[in-house]
């Protein structure tokens, strides 16, 4: 009985130290983001390249947080890409990236506000416009900006 208690205690301590050691969900988001931002510059230079990066991240790692980080990083690069033509073909590529984010969001079970906060953008609402390409009702919510 005592031995069981000791083992249980040791297990609990191990679990507890593992939990206290970091924010794994956030770590996955950061890893996913880095997978896009640290890709060879040519890979992320076009909407098509970014769509490929986001989709491959979603299939490479089973963590939805990883896919979320990659998808949001791709969308953020899209927003910063002033040269993007936003043609019909581009729009389809953007929609593929948005689907990566929406699927990851659903798998992670987080709300829209969290997606906007995780976008890393100082103007989180800018991500809304892209998300609405797929879901016209999608919104960061009323509390996105300063809570």
């Amino acid at each position, binding site marked *: 009985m005592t031995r069981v208690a000791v083992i249980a205690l040791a297990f609990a301590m191990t679990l507890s130290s593992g939990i206290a050691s970091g*924010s794994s*969900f956030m770590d996955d*988001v950061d890893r996913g983001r880095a997978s896009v931002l640290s890709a060879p510059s040519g890979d992320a230079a076009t909407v098509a390249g970014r769509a490929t990066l986001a989709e491959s991240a979603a299939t490479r790692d089973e963590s939805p947080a990883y896919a979320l980080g990659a998808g949001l990083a791709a969308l953020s690069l899209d927003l910063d890409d002033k040269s993007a033509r936003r043609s019909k073909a581009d729009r389809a590529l953007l929609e593929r990236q948005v689907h990566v984010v929406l699927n990851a969001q659903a798998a992670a079970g987080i*709300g829209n506000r969290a997606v906007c906060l995780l976008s890393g953008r*100082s103007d989180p609402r800018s991500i809304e416009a892209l998300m609405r390409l797929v879901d016209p009702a999608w919104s960061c919510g*009323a509390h996105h*900006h*300063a*809570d």
Partner: protein
Amino acid sequence: MATGRGLLCAIAALSAVSAISAATRARAQDGPDLVLDVPRMQSSARIATAIYHAPTKRAPALDATVPVSGTCVLDPDENCVGGAGIRKLLRFDVLVHNRGNEDLVLGDPKQRPDLFEYSACHRHYHFRGAALYELLDESGQRVRLGRKQGFCLEDTIPSERGSTIPKKYTCTNQGIQVGWADFYPAILDCQWIDVTDLPPGNYKLHVAWNPNRLMTETRYDNDEGTVDVAIPAATDAPPVVDAVRAPTSSIRIHAGELLEVAWRAHDDEGVVTQEIWLSTDDGETWKELVGDVPGDRSRFSLRLPTDSATPNARIKVVARDASVQRGELTSPSFRILARDLRLPFITRSGGVP
């Protein structure tokens, strides 16, 4: 044999006492345990610049590469920056996990006036006093205080990878579920400490979650953290203000009237924003009258406060560059006469006050 049986009974009794004691301890420790993610705070801390405009003014055309914001930042209830214009900010993430064995339940903010306050600027309820942000010098003395007022406590992200616990708490039914975390990323307005005009050097960022223990937890020692931060020195020269023209003694000016200030400022990489300050005690204390004058302006008309009558007024112009370095020059002393109450509706320039 009897002795052996007695020993067994004693061991059994001790085990029972131990089990009861453990159960009691477990009950005493039931509850939420909010844990500040200090590594996250450390890894996200960074110095940034931004330009803020007084809410009622049209934003001047400034360097588009510098983020411009200010929805509620300059609202009197928030005052998240020391003034309008370009500011240097220490931004950082705050991530708070609930690692207890019970949810933190706050509920509908409308039903908890003891904990929440309605923000007219944000148009929703804020938890007052959820966190304390402060910057300490190397000796531990506070040099700046964060001003973030608004916190909506909710299940923002799961704490751990692979969590399958559904989100429960939102801004309208606030709380933090076991296994979830609330997240205030550095990108949010007011999620910073304004470090404008602090000398470069090493400092300590201290964040205390739940500093007043308004939220009951099983333990409080893991609610706070302190990390080292550095404010780097600028590598370029600061701006220079080499002339300020304000009223001379031959010009009679009254409190409440328009005052035109002219000056000359320059910088090796360009002046970004400029400030005009007023002293009514010969330079002992100063009040900022306007803080976001565009860098290309060298003249500005502003209305003197109605209570500014003094024999010893001075005007100070502060110019700031993209590194938020300052250059300044103070005018000679001049007199501001009491408001002319004989002409309450017409100013000396003929306009309506």
